[in-house]
């Protein structure tokens, strides 16, 4: 008699915690990872979407190859195919990286950066320095420069926070501002990863340009992105800055890691960023669509944060929690104005970006970073915290002064916190955002529920959502 193969990957572990830039050591504070709660399992995204493309690099061997050979080979091939002739010998090139690439793709992202730097030095005789565009929450990020030995590997490395000195850029809409140190060389190279983060903001319009309106932009223009445009047009900031003469004079090429929930599926590059964006956009929506939409099938649950992200940027199954927060909204639908209520200029109760997902019955903070305001969590959901140290970190976060409004009980153990949250919320379902790639960390019954819903959701994504998303953007797969 054949044994029935379980779709669950119980052996899949969450990534370890790192020491943070501001010297916090969550690994010494967090006594128990949520993965070790009773009855937890890992539901592979591939079990929900069997035709997910195969990876060339994954963080965990259970998901795919972990060696970097194919990433390096593809990056080298792409580098050879790009036109670098703009770069004159002996001059300086800023190779611009972002922390999301380091967080999600780790050594694969660093390998891509190394290939670019080596190629440009060797073929153009230019000098290359690494510039990391830092965003909100930088000081609580893992210390990526040390973790990946970036100074040793790249030499001149600098993290460039968004509040650093700026440069005014003349754009089609008027003055905008970028971080000076990212563009203070005759040339720069743009790098990215294609993961689905902040889809409610970029709406998959110019997705690969987004850092020009966010991570590369100064506070003034990042703020205008949020407050000076409508719910589907903030990305015009990214387009305006990218197309400005100042940026175009310096821009050389883009190389990205194309990703799915499981890891890297290919290295892609082009001198024409807009062409690259349109080439990849359909695949991004296809590859993440299932993971995004299945979260809308959760009827009741407790969410556990157990990751380096700042609340909405904690990850599960390769996607950020913001996808779950908006899971009852089709924010990829460009006809959907639901977010207008969140950002319209005369709203008395804007909630800034997000509404409330009524399926979330409570949130447990085992660990999360600060740095990004999350009032829509503290005001809308029962919050539970594990341990006095994590509670103190939350209360002291300059971006979450509201946290005390949550009046969160502080529990001495994770088990107690989850038990209380489930009891109060009337649910037994738990989903954990612990940055495990390729799978949702869920209580087993919730995993089985999602598995049972997967065929219907898959059909909806393939026959309804994806065709609509593509049609609205004039895209094909």
């Amino acid at each position, binding site marked *: 008699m054949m044994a029935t193969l379980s779709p669950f990957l119980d052996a899949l572990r969450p990534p370890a915690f790192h020491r943070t830039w*501001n010297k916090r050591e969550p690994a010494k504070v967090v006594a128990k990872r949520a993965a070790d709660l009773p009855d937890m399992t890992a539901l592979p995204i591939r079990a929900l979407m069997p035709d997910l493309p195969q990876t060339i690099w994954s963080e965990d061997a259970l998901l795919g190859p972990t060696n970097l050979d194919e990433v390096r080979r593809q990056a080298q091939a792409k580098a050879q195919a790009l036109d670098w002739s703009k770069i004159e010998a002996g001059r300086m090139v800023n190779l611009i990286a972002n922390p999301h690439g380091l967080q999600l793709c780790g050594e694969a992202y660093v390998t891509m950066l190394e290939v670019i730097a080596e190629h440009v030095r060797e073929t153009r005789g230019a000098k290359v320095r690494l510039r990391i565009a830092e*965003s*909100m*929450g*930088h*000081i609580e990020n893992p210390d990526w420069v040390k973790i990946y030995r970036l100074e040793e590997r790249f030499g001149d490395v600098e993290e460039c926070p*968004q*509040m*650093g*000195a*700026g440069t005014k850029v003349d754009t*089609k*809409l*008027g*003055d*905008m*501002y970028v971080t000076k140190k990212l563009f203070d060389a005759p040339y720069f190279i743009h790098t990215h990863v294609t993961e689905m983060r902040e889809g409610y903001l970029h709406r998959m*319009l110019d997705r690969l340009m987004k850092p020009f309106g966010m991570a590369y932009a*100064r*506070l*003034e223009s*990042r*703020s*205008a992105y*949020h*407050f*000076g*445009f*409508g*719910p*589907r*047009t903030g*990305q*015009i*900031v990214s*387009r*305006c800055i990218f197309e400005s003469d100042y940026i175009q004079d310096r821009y050389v090429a883009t190389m990205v890691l194309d990703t799915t929930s499981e890891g890297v599926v290919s290295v892609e590059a082009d001198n024409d960023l807009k062409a690259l964006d349109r080439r990849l956009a359909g695949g991004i929506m296809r590859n993440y669509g299932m993971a995004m939409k299945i979260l809308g099938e959760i009827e009741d649950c407790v969410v556990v944060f157990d990751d380096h992200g700042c609340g909405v940027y904690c990850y599960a199954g390769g996607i950020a929690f913001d996808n779950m927060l908006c899971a009852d909204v089709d924010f990829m639908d*460009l*006809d959907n*104005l639901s977010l*207008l209520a969140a950002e*319209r*200029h*005369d*709203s*008395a*109760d*804007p*909630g*800034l970006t997000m509404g409330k997902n009524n399926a979330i019955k409570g949130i447990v903070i085992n660990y999360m970073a600060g740095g990004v*305001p999350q*009032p829509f969590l503290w005001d809308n959901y029962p919050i539970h915290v594990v341990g006095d140290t994590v509670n*103190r970190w939350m*209360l*002291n976060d*300059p*971006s*979450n*002064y509201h946290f005390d409004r949550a009046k969160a009980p502080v529990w001495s153990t994770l088990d107690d916190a989850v038990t209380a949250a489930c009891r109060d919320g009337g649910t037994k379902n738990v989903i954990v955002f612990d940055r495990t790639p390729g799978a949702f960390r869920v209580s087993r019954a919730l995993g089985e529920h999602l598995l049972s819903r997967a065929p219907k959701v898959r059909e909806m994504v393939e026959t309804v959502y994806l065709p609509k998303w593509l049609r609205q*953007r004039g895209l094909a797969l």
Partner: protein
Amino acid sequence: MPKTVRMVAQIIAEKCTGCRLCEQVCPTVAIGMRPRREDEAGKGRNIAILAPEACYNAQACVEICPDDAIEMVELDTPFDVGFDLPPVDEDAVKALCRKAGYGRNMQICVCTDTKAGEIANAIIGGAHSPEAVSLATGARTGCVELCMQPILHLLACAGHGDAPRNPKNGFQWYGQSATLWQHVQPDGSLPDAIRNAFPEFPLDKEFGDMAKLKRRS
């Protein structure tokens, strides 16, 4: 809404090189410089000095410091800021918010939950620069990514768009960043040049809703 300050910065004198970066980013101008005494260890002629009562736990100084010379310390006695906004003419507050295109209760600084009406109140009450607004309300002392533009815009609408920098070479803020709003014409439409510049974006739909809102205001 007021903010409770639970931590303040502390300068580590022997690590400080007096580079002034912390002074240039502090949103409440809580940091200045003093000469390094001969008996003090460390490099540089100057050492940063903190006015703790003006430190609102923004941590911008920690982030910008290249020498790891600033750390945040918890206060035994936290203090509140932003409670005592000056009494001003309510109609003037409404008028300034209306001119800026913001509802009075619109959340401007999400980190501190400061509303447009509170910012307007502070401006009308004498806070004529972003730093003064921050000191009065507590706003702009968190991530700053969300509130910067609306605060600059409200100041400009009140006639204070040309506030001097403090310090002179500070970069706590530059100017207002361009928005779509500023291009709305009196008839509620967008110029053709802008429409034609972004054909992939749903400007017609987007702008239709925005125009309705603007007409309402």
